[in-house]
């Protein structure tokens, strides 16, 4: 029996989510026993042609070229999994969606006429059907292994769509918002990191984006009670998942210069 083939692709992103695969130091050398790594430019100059059984896609769509490219990637992939906040929500570069791209370009580049970019940064699922979206900025290593294992076994990945609070409680941590009055996005943020920030005496800053049951207006009231002003509240939602449904309404409130 031939091994299923794996391809890893990069769009607009920081490389951190595909690096998560290379950060599986204990599992990396067992990977070739279960999959054939057919396309992973960051790690290998040996590239096999498609079709591929599983494609992992990092990054968002921000150029016409990538909008074309994702169609071809989808065509060649039996299963397409998007990994990380850029691929699943547009990433922090989606802050352009609330601003003026011409002004953004002029602010950064001396010769803006050379810049080939779209006015928006959009998730992969806005362009092609996606079989699974794994959240996080960056994604969690254990969750990545779970998703790969699940698709290789032909089962649904066991990735709970719940809040960071549930993980925090399970870890037995004291609530930073209740005990210390520290603003925390845990109640609205998708679980998966293991409640890392509260473990560092810090409020969650939402890098996994909203879970499906997020009640953002209720949390906003709570954040106000912690002493945050409206501008600051808008800013905390306008980061790595700014364009995600649930956070986007808040992000839009942010005053842009």
């Amino acid at each position: 029996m031939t091994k299923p083939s794996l391809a890893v692709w990069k769009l607009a992103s920081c490389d951190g989510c595909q690096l998560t695969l290379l950060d599986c130091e204990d599992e990396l050398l067992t990977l070739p026993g279960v999959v054939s790594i057919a396309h992973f430019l960051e790690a290998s100059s040996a590239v096999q042609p498609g079709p591929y059984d599983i494609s992992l896609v990092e990054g968002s769509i921000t150029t016409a070229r990538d909008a074309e490219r994702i169609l071809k990637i989808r065509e060649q992939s039996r299963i397409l999994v998007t990994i990380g906040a850029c691929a699943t929500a547009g990433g922090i570069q989606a802050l352009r969606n609330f601003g003026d791209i011409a002004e953004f370009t002029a602010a950064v580049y001396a010769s803006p006429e050379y810049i080939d970019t779209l006015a928006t940064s959009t998730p992969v699922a806005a362009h092609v059907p996606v079989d699974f979206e794994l959240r996080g900025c960056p994604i969690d290593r254990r969750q990545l292994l779970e998703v790969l294992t699940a698709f290789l076994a032909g089962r649904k990945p066991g990735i709970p769509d719940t809040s960071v609070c549930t993980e925090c409680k399970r870890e037995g941590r004291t609530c930073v918002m209740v005990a210390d009055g520290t603003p925390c996005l845990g109640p609205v943020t998708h679980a998966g990191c293991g409640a890392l920030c509260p473990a560092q005496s810090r409020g969650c800053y939402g890098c996994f984006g909203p879970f499906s049951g997020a009640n953002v207006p209720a949390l906003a009231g709570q954040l106000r009670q912690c002493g945050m002003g409206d501008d600051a509240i808008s800013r905390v939602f306008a980061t790595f998942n700014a364009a995600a449904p649930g956070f986007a309404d808040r992000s839009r409130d942010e005053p842009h210069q």
Partner: protein
Amino acid sequence: MSHTSRNLVVSGLARVEGEGALRVTIRDGQVEQAELNIYEPPRFFEAFLRGRSYTEPPDITSRICGICPVAYQTSACNAIEQACGAKLDPPLAELRRLLYCGEWISSHALHIYLLHAPDFLGYPDAIAMAREHRDIVERGLALKKAGNAVMESLGGRAIHPVNVRVGGFYRVPGPSEFAPLADQLRRALELALETARWVATFDFPDLELRQDLLALHDPGRYPIERGTLATTGGLAFTPSEFPGHVTEQQVPHSTALHATLDGHHYLTGPLARYSLNSGSLPPAARQAAADAGLGPQCRNPFRSIVVRAVEIICAVEEALRIIDGYHRPDRPAVEVTPCAATGHGVSEAPRGLLYHRYELDGDGLIRSATIIPPTSQNLAVIENDLRRVIAAHLDQDDASLTALCERAIRNHDPCISCAAHFLTLSVSHR
């Protein structure tokens, strides 16, 4: 004489961070064009940093690069703390260096074992290399894991650590928390020494950099998380003077902006750091450098893999020194009061100097931001290396010459994801 033309094109460069392409044209035995094209999409960080709070750049700019997030966090903190006149308590400054050591160990181990060594040993990747040299690749992964363990232990996670803030940290570890890490690092020191002995046995093509080298200088110790600037040409200046010396220019033959230092091309990164600071290496790293045949300077980019191995030893030694002398600081962070001012911050990312500048208003909101990543500064030298390597090996067939060109690029561990947010992007259709 008939005209001959050769074109070498690699549309997707492998084993580099980010998306780039190589284009070379040789006509009548002359290198007509040698370009490292960037097609990584721009992400506009400097634009959307405007209007953000002075507390936000460490988290936001770490997302420029998943390979060197600590470098972004550190240069951002350095710049904002300078603007606000804040100075870290010495134990907090040591912890900042410790976190950065973790990134050096991890990033350098990644580059040596997974990206660069396969070039020297003739494999497409480390997984293929592991079929014949499993113990070697396992050593590299163990070393990389030790670097990640430093960042996980102190930073909360290895990619985009969560425990860094302007002024220090959210939480500082208790004294016993570092004990398992110290054991892991002591084993890592052995692995790092073995790494240096291993890479020293590789064959290195001849190439001698002629350009000025620019690196940080931190009196008495190898520069990592702070310092002032120095060049091999004898120039010395402060981070605030950086914009007066380094300017970015558009060059007609390339789509990229190239940085110049007082009008000249220059190189940052391991070769520059080593050549300017080899006398400040801690003992084991200094001995390993001598054993590996490195002199006080190293100007052959192919040998950068040896310098990286020496720098891993340095980072492990420094991490152990900091952990061994660790007492829990009195407070996790110093107070930083925002004011209307401009701050400049520098640090040594694994692949070279990273400069940040922030202009704040009286409410602590960012009025403007400038970020100059190492790869943008190194692009001109990388292209220059390409021309010289090609000119010296014109007798090779296209496949070998292309492979050599890719190696010449990988020598500098370019991070195209970092570079992209400020490089111009245009696709030439010819």
